[in-house]
């Protein structure tokens, strides 16, 4: 019975690809799902595909906001964390062990705690209240950077530690400066570093606490996929929430396919 329903969904999806893009595609949900209790999820799933394939403006606005803040955060965080991670891994200094413990702790930092602290700092009565950053995309980006810098930093350190120890010796023997060493390591262990960055990206795009608390979930401005999912579900608009969930999964899949492709190359 279930298999039949899934097959019907696939047929409708295929039909939808062949249909004229100008026209709105409407899936005859009722014909596929006879009983409401049985068809709630699949019905919603088909409606969500409807929204996606019809390029629903509200939906894609949310997706673009999400991509914008998460990519910005990942770019800034990688720019800081990758070179810093290589420096930390390659050098011995007092307090390195304490730093490593702190970084490991920060890896498990709840997003809502970051959001809470940032709210405390950025609200009108807060330490940085005057700079008017609360409920802006910039605030979300800063929050996401705080969230993922420890992740990328830690994974960069691990990547360097697990690289060939002769590489560091070779760099030293060829007279590489600290900056040249960083560039050589970025080139030599780029796939391990890319995995760290993708992990950081996964954390950024999937978090909800920071975006909700310092972004304020403002429609068309700071509403990200995760905050929209939470809001739309509570509003009862499950189809919209589910379409965002599908988009979120699709983006994660796409990024991992790209990573896999580069690793194979």
């Amino acid at each position, binding site marked *: 019975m279930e298999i039949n329903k899934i097959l019907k969904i696939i047929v409708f999806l295929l039909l939808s690809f062949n249909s004229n893009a100008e026209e709105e595609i409407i899936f005859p949900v009722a014909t596929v799902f006879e009983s409401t209790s049985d068809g709630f999820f699949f019905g919603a799933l088909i409606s969500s595909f409807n929204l996606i394939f019809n390029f629903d403006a509200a939906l894609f606005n949310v997706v673009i906001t999400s991509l914008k803040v998460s990519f910005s955060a990942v770019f800034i965080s990688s720019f800081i964390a990758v070179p810093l991670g290589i420096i930390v891994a390659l050098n011995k200094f007092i307090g390195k062990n304490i730093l490593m413990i702190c970084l490991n702790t920060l890896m498990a930092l709840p997003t809502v705690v970051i959001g809470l602290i940032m709210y405390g700092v950025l609200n009108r009565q807060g330490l940085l209240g005057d700079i008017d950053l609360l409920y802006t995309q910039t605030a979300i980006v800063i929050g996401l950077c705080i969230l993922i810098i420890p992740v990328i930093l830690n994974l960069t350190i691990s990547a360097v530690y697990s690289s060939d120890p002769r590489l560091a010796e*070779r760099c030293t*023997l*060829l*007279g590489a400066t600290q900056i040249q060493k960083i560039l*050589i390591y970025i080139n030599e262990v780029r796939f391990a570093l890319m995995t760290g960055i993708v992990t950081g990206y996964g954390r950024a795009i999937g978090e909800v606490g920071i975006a909700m608390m310092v972004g304020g979930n403002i429609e068309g401005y700071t509403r990200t996929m995760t905050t929209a999912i939470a809001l739309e579900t509570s509003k009862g608009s499950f189809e919209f929430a589910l379409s965002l969930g599908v988009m979120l999964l699709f983006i994660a899949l796409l990024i991992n396919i790209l990573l896999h492709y580069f690793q194979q190359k």
Partner: protein
Amino acid sequence: MKNLYKLKNIVFNYDNNSFINDLNLEIFRSEITSFVGPNGSGKTTLLNILSFLNFPHSGSIFFNNIELKKNNIKIFRNKVGYVQQNPYLFRGTVYKNIEIGLKLNNVNFEKRVCKIEKVLSLLKIEHLINRLANSLSTGEARKVALAQITVLDPDVLIMDEPFSNLDKNSVIELEELIIFLNKEFNKTVIFTTHDQIQAQKLASSIFSLIKGRLFSNDFVNLFKGKFNESIGKFDTGKQLISIYKSTKNAEYVAIDPKQIVLSVEKLDSSMQNSFHGRILGISENDFNIKLNIDIGENIQAIITHQAFNELKLSLNMNVWVSFKSTSIMIF
């Protein structure tokens, strides 16, 4: 002759255990110097110190009569090129690997091209230029690593076990190259090996390194084993050797080749070690004759021309090899 390196009371520890202890050494400019020793004797550690990769835990190093300090180590490193036993090659082509050192030292494009062409022709590796580094054989990788260093034109060329895992032709090529670099470009060459004959062939100064201790003696007959208490002899696995004291911790014994007595018949003497063997090789110089004899272990004896003529020795001849237990050094 002017000394290039002077090492005084060098100590290097691994995990608080002294690995190189109170080492004193002088290496002369434009000479070929070899360190011979078994695996784990500290050869690589010493080369890491000589290439300024590692800083000793105590003692002082003078290079060109300037004392090495942590703040001037980078200037010293530029003078030295170090090819490790298993050199790391960067991702990309052989050309990029050779070019990287020049790039790091800010050499401009035209000069880079010119220098790389010269080194490729010197090492006869023009055919490898577009090959990916990870597709090279051990011998090819070692040549590329040597090119990577030689292109930087260092004063000193240091090589760790350069002849290991190479086929016969590659060994000959590398030997010729070392001699060429030394003679034509006045390079000081330092290399390690566990093969005494290889060292004798190339080096003008040979040092033996055993358990982190340096000996200026040329330990041709160095055998690893352990003291067998039940029979009271040192067991090399292939031969039992009487030593003058029972040392439970003995790991190596060395027999001075000049202390070995050869005879056609077994000698009736107080010498506790007497083995029957066969002559495998004979080589001579102005002062004496070296004989390689198989007594279960390969042993080298050095005798005078007079003794050689009197005994009428020849290749594959059976001889008796005798030496006193007091002529054995124990480590």
